[in-house]
């Protein structure tokens, strides 16, 4: 099942997928400010991960980008490759399969009739021939694969992953990471991933953003070649550094303020 990835896939890729522009985005629930004055530009076709302590607003940011929530302040802009509005599809931590629909009909949710494509996608996620099964008959990892196939059937220019592997065991999680990476390499699109797993973010992404104090605290470009990242000394060093920052909230906030002045992406 584990796909063989070429060890020297170029990091710079031709632009495909949506460009995301966030301008001074804020979100508050009552008195609680979750996001504040967040500026961000995501290049088309890039794989960007969001890290941060619980409550840092990672998932909120993703829901705002998906249009499931409206920001209290600022603006969100999605620019697709064509004139039509950008299709964004979200994958959640829970698979959210409809238990009363067969696997194939779950994939077809919202797009009737494209059975051939649905079957091809099920094959691509390693579930060939399981289209007739009920979701209750699948394991947690298999169900997430179905959810992934369902998201991909819409050919989204922007794929939003909200901790999709959080509930899976370690082995299944790595298999899913490889699957997502392979599918992204096959068909370029912009991917935003929210995760708690620092290594997952570093292995998969072109760019890792650490949220702190309601905006981007750290903005890291991962320019290591794909395929051999796990265990790479620089990745290990980054991981240590980020984990330290997450473990010490006070110093992280201070560090974040410093970082912000220096490496904040320019979006104007």
């Amino acid at each position: 099942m584990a796909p063989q990835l070429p060890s020297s896939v170029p990091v710079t890729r031709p632009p495909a997928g949506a460009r995301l522009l966030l301008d001074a985005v804020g979100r508050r629930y009552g008195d609680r400010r979750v996001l504040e004055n967040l500026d961000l530009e995501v290049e088309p076709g890039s794989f960007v991960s969001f890290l941060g302590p619980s409550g840092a607003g990672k998932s909120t940011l993703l829901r705002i980008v998906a249009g499931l929530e409206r920001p209290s302040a600022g603006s969100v802009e999605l620019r697709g490759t064509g004139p039509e509005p950008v299709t964004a599809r979200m994958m959640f931590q829970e698979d959210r399969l409809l238990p009363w629909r067969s696997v194939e009909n779950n994939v077809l949710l919202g797009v009737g009739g494209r059975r051939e494509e649905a079957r091809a996608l099920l094959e691509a996620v390693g579930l060939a021939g399981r289209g007739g099964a009920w979701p209750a008959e699948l394991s947690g990892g298999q169900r997430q694969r179905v959810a992934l196939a369902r998201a991909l059937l819409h050919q989204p220019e922007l794929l939003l992953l909200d901790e999709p592997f959080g509930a899976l065991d370690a082995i299944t999680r790595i298999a899913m990471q490889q699957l997502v990476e392979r599918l992204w390499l096959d068909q370029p699109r912009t991917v935003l991933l929210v995760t708690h797993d620092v290594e997952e973010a570093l292995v998969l992404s072109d760019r890792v953003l650490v949220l702190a104090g309601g905006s981007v605290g750290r903005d890291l470009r991962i320019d290591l070649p794909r395929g051999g990242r796990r265990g790479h000394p620089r990745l290990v060093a980054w991981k240590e550094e980020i984990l330290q920052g997450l473990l010490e909230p006070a110093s992280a906030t201070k560090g974040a303020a410093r970082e912000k002045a220096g490496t904040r992406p320019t979006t104007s």
Partner: protein
Amino acid sequence: MPEQPLLAKDGEPPSWPADATGQETGRATAPRPAGPPATRRIARLLPPLGRALAPWAVPLLVLVVWQVTAQTGALSPSVLPAPEAVLRAGSDLAATGELQRYILTSLRRIAQGFALGAATGLVLGFVVGMSKPAELLLDRSLQMVRTIPHLALVPLMIAWFGIGEEPKILLVALGTFFPIYLNTVTGIRGVDPKLLQLGRSYGLGRWSLIRDIAVPGAMPTILAGIRYSLGVAWMTLVIAETISADDGIGYLAQDARQMLRTDQIVLAIVLYALAGLLADLLTRLIERRVLRWHPNYRRPSR
């Protein structure tokens, strides 16, 4: 129909009900133990045929004891006629065509009353379950009417309609309405808001949200209501037919009482029991078909 009660408000911290089909469901498809270990061991010792017949052992025993005591005279026929006498009463009535007519009349009343009550209950249940304004407008009134035992309306119905068909059908409809209405509202409210959010973010329109997510999600609860209300429907019909009727199974019992034909009275009771059993079997079949995706409704042996 606004969808506020269906869908969590923007940004509200999630407070979803536990997912009925969680990670562990793989286990639910495994054969379930049929009881405590000792009974299970006994059950496994029996051949499949024996296991299929075992539930019928007690009713059969009762029937045999009944027949024997009646035949030896220990049980007076005026108290309880022998099963064989009840059967004879049935075949006599069938020969004249009366039995079939009684059964058909009662079935028709049940069907009409149930259809009326179930349709109203489902429609109002969906409306109230999905729309906040409808809930504000209707729910309180319906809950107040619910506290009136519907059988208390029997005298009023007779005063209004005499002994025609209307009071029976209306009473059955009333008895059917509330269990279905309440379960539909509960079922709709219980639909996982995460699934509705998913549906919205995958571009489903409102009609599709209702058809593909709300209705199937509420179905287990609605079907439980339908099963319960079928029982209420038969009970209501028994009372309505016994009090005022010139046709139907209840009339048969009433007429037999005046003639002191205990065999026919028992026959009427048996007919009601069979009808209830059949109705229950039918809804179980429907459940197994409609809820075949649900691990709890799948056949345990697989």
